[in-house]
């Protein structure tokens, strides 16, 4: 074999291809072996005699096996000798017992515990050369890299899915769903027992379908020993009886104890573990050190998500209770009055704000009603509305005349705000509604610096009620306006907060909605039931806002229900006010 054998041949896969192979005159000088090959330095001087061809080739990382036209081995390089000791010069290659060295065989194969690749290159005179390379190390490095990448990608997905605060049950279900199939065929999460009961979630899958999640409860005392240990923070190591315990607990459907591998890791919590994760799969994929590390990393993220979720739940329980006490209470049923309300706090997630409304029934058949707005926003404002509503709740029993009641409220608020040094104030419309014989209503209203109410007349016109007055909670003897309005049957009085008229929207999002647009929106709506009217005000305001920020919005509508109202029969069958925030009765 000479250099001319390969001179005009391009191996085709590019791995050894160099332009120099077509330039025989520069052959020896231009050979560029891959840098890892330990080759004696070649003199760059072309005038120096070329080294012996075999001397160069013998040092290739690839071993060479050259066969003649009959398939008889003619040359085996030292590297090939080491990799394929069966191949003997002078004998048929096919007789050597290396099936991978035959035409059409796959390039990669395992031979004597090493991962090899082989490729056949035809030479002149029907001869051929097999290039055989040992890729065990690079393949295992590539595998390790891919595995590491898969682990990082998995943990990234986990972080993404568990990074948001979740409901604890959601978090638990998400954890077991994520664990399958990346970590296990069956994953069981057991939460630390609460009140003697331990809840568990299990993710499992059959075939290649998406994992299914189920859950259950165990008495704290019935937990498998390994799980109980895990809950104390110990990671059990005796993995063989662990599987038995999980099988006994009925957690491993389709996995028999003898042919399964399992691991248990605690999920770190605030002090003690928040739960324990059990992962199991067929023993064909044993959990090695890297797997266990991945499970621990997963458990750390899962533990953080669960801890956050539980913390959120505990705090939300407290917040919900407080919040419920600060939400406006729907007006109480009253003879001859159809109530309509709308409420949209500025901070949507909070659901409470500085606007308030409500009503109380009076002993004489009338009703006290009110709508107002306290200074400030958010929780502090909501707390102040709570104080204000409680004051009214108590005071309306002593005084039912609107202006005098408003002055009493003012005194009470002044005392409270001065005692707490809050410096808070409120605007309010406070009225008393009394049904008339003809089905109409007489409204006597006192004004505490709030926007004047509107009245929808039966003609379809909208009137502003001339009601003035000063803020309450500021001075000890405020000027309080008072006005009496008569509503014929079907007519409606509308109280609203400045969140409506001061809503900013329009073309540029900075134009005030203003009272004129409100009047336009209400004109011609005289036949609307009060709840529909209140919702209409809320809707036109929100449409105007076009998803922009807004102040608290509150609307209270009173409609003279008229004599035809057969309220009594339906009062119990129709839940009053379709509650937007809470649950409708089941």
């Amino acid at each position, binding site marked *: 074999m000479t250099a001319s054998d390969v001179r005009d041949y391009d191996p085709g896969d590019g791995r050894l291809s160099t332009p120099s192979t077509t330039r025989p005159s520069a052959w020896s000088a231009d050979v560029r072996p891959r840098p890892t090959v330990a080759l004696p330095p070649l003199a760059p001087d072309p005038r120096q005699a070329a080294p012996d061809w075999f001397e160069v080739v013998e040092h290739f990382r690839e071993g060479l096996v050259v066969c003649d036209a009959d398939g008889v081995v003619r040359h085996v390089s030292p590297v090939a000798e080491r990799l394929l000791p069966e191949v003997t010069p002078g004998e048929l290659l096919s007789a050597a017992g290396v099936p991978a060295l035959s035409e059409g065989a796959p390039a990669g194969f395992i031979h004597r515990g090493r991962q090899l690749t082989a490729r056949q290159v035809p030479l002149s005179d029907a001869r051929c050369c097999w290039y055989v390379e040992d890729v065990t190390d690079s393949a295992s490095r590539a595998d390790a890299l891919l595995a590491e990448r898969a682990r990082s990608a998995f943990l990234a997905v986990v972080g993404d899915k568990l990074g948001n605060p979740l409901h604890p049950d959601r978090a638990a279900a998400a954890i077991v769903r994520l664990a399958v199939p990346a970590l296990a065929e069956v994953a069981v999460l057991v939460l630390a027992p609460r009140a003697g009961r331990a809840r568990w979630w299990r993710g499992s899958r059959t075939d290649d379908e*998406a994992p299914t999640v189920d859950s259950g409860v165990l008495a704290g005392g019935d937990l498998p020993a390994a799980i109980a240990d895990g809950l104390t923070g110990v990671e059990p190591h005796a993995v063989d009886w662990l599987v038995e315990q999980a099988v006994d607990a009925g957690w491993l459907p389709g996995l028999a104890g003898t042919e399964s591998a399992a691991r248990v890791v605690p999920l770190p919590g605030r002090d003690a573990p928040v739960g324990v994760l059990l992962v199991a799969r067929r023993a064909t994929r044993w959990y090695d050190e890297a797997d266990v590390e991945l499970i621990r990393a997963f458990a750390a993220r899962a533990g953080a998500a669960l801890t956050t979720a539980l913390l959120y739940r505990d705090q939300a329980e407290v917040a919900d209770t407080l919040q419920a006490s600060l939400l406006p209470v729907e007006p109480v049923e009253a003879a001859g009055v159809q109530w309509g309300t709308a409420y949209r706090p500025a901070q949507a997630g909070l659901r409470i704000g500085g606007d308030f409304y409500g009503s109380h029934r009076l002993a004489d058949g009338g009703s006290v009603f009110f709508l107002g707005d306290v200074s400030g926003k958010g929780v502090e404002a909501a707390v102040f509305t709570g104080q204000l509503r409680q004051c009214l709740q108590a005071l309306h029993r002593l005084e039912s005349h609107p202006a005098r009641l408003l002055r009493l409220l003012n005194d009470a608020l002044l005392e409270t705000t001065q005692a707490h040094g809050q410096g808070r104030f409120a605007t309010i419309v406070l009225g008393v509604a009394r049904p008339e014989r003809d089905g109409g209503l007489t409204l006597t209203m006192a004004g505490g610096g709030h926007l004047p109410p509107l009245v929808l007349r039966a003609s379809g016109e909208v009137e502003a009620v001339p009601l003035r007055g000063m803020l309450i909670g500021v001075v000890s003897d405020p000027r309080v306006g008072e006005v009496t309005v008569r509503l014929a049957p079907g007519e409606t009085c509308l109280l609203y907060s400045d969140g409506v008229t001061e809503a900013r929207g329009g073309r540029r999002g900075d134009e005030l909605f203003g009272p004129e647009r409100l009047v336009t929106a209400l004109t011609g709506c005289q*036949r609307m039931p009060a709840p529909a*009217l209140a919702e209409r005000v809320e809707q036109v305001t929100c449409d105007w806002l076009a998803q922009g920020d807004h102040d608290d919005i509150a609307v209270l509508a009173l409609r003279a229900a008229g004599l035809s109202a057969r309220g009594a029969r339906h009062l119990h069958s129709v839940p009053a006010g379709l509650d937007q925030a809470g649950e409708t009765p089941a």
Partner: protein
Amino acid sequence: MTAATAAVDLDDAYSGYLDCLADADEYAATDLAIALLDAGVPAERVLLDLVAPAQAEVGERWARNEWSVAQEHAATHISEQVVAAVSAYAKSRPTRGRVVVACMDGEWHALPPRLVAEVLRLRGWQVTFLGASVPAAHLVSYLHRYDAHAVALACALPMRLPYAHRMIEACRRSDVPVVVGGRGFGADGRWARRLGVAWAPDAPSAAELISDERALRGVPAARLAHLADDEYASLLRRRGELIDSALAELRERVPAAREYTAAQLDATVSDLGHIVDFLAAAVYVDDASLFTEFVQWLAGILRSRGVPAGAVALPLEHYAAALRDFPRAGRMLALGCAALPATAH
């Protein structure tokens, strides 16, 4: 009572029910529905074969300018009361998990999702109905607080699809599966598929979908690669400027527009804004049919209110000129113009 006689009763009841809505007689409407239940008609049929088609008819009457907005609102309110009464009558007990039903933020058509909510309740789900225009923050804090098996979101106007998508993603981040419904996702749900979310055409199929958790979670991902061209975001940024210039041109070319009252001006600005919003939504889901369907609908609405169809063609042409650098929006505007009746040009 057999199913056949029940069907006859429902047909009879339907026109009577529409009369109740027309008279804004809440009590008569409720009595009628309760009488059907007393006669043995299943609650689900009263909801889906009486209340739902009546509500569709109410919408049609508004579109034909036969009913005012006030009448439409009053009728809707009455139907809501009827739904509540039917639900109270049926007294279903929850045996299954919790499902949260809500309207998208900015979406006020609450009756269709309420019907879905009641059908789910009748089928044993523990249903929470959050009502109209639910802010995403409110929905998400609710989902954090109460574990939900699924969320059903309604969207009646395709214009809100970009917001809908944000809301869907917010629910997904809480790991709660979402099913959507409503005309806003297209008659065949094609924009739901575009946004990668499960879609149900009606209440019974929503109930079936919610019972099948695998189907709920196994939805192909959203296909929104086209958003990389930034046309949607740029359209939103230029919204105010587009409306201003369209209004200026309208005043210049249509002398009557200079005499508009404040209310007429607001209505015009709102229509001009809707055109931009629908265009933006069409760009968002990359489907010109969203825009052309809207243009035809708008032309019909305006025609029934005596507004010449040219009032739609003019802003479309104006926007097309202003958005020369927006290839996708430009193509949709051209198709929108072409979809207008011939007299419009």
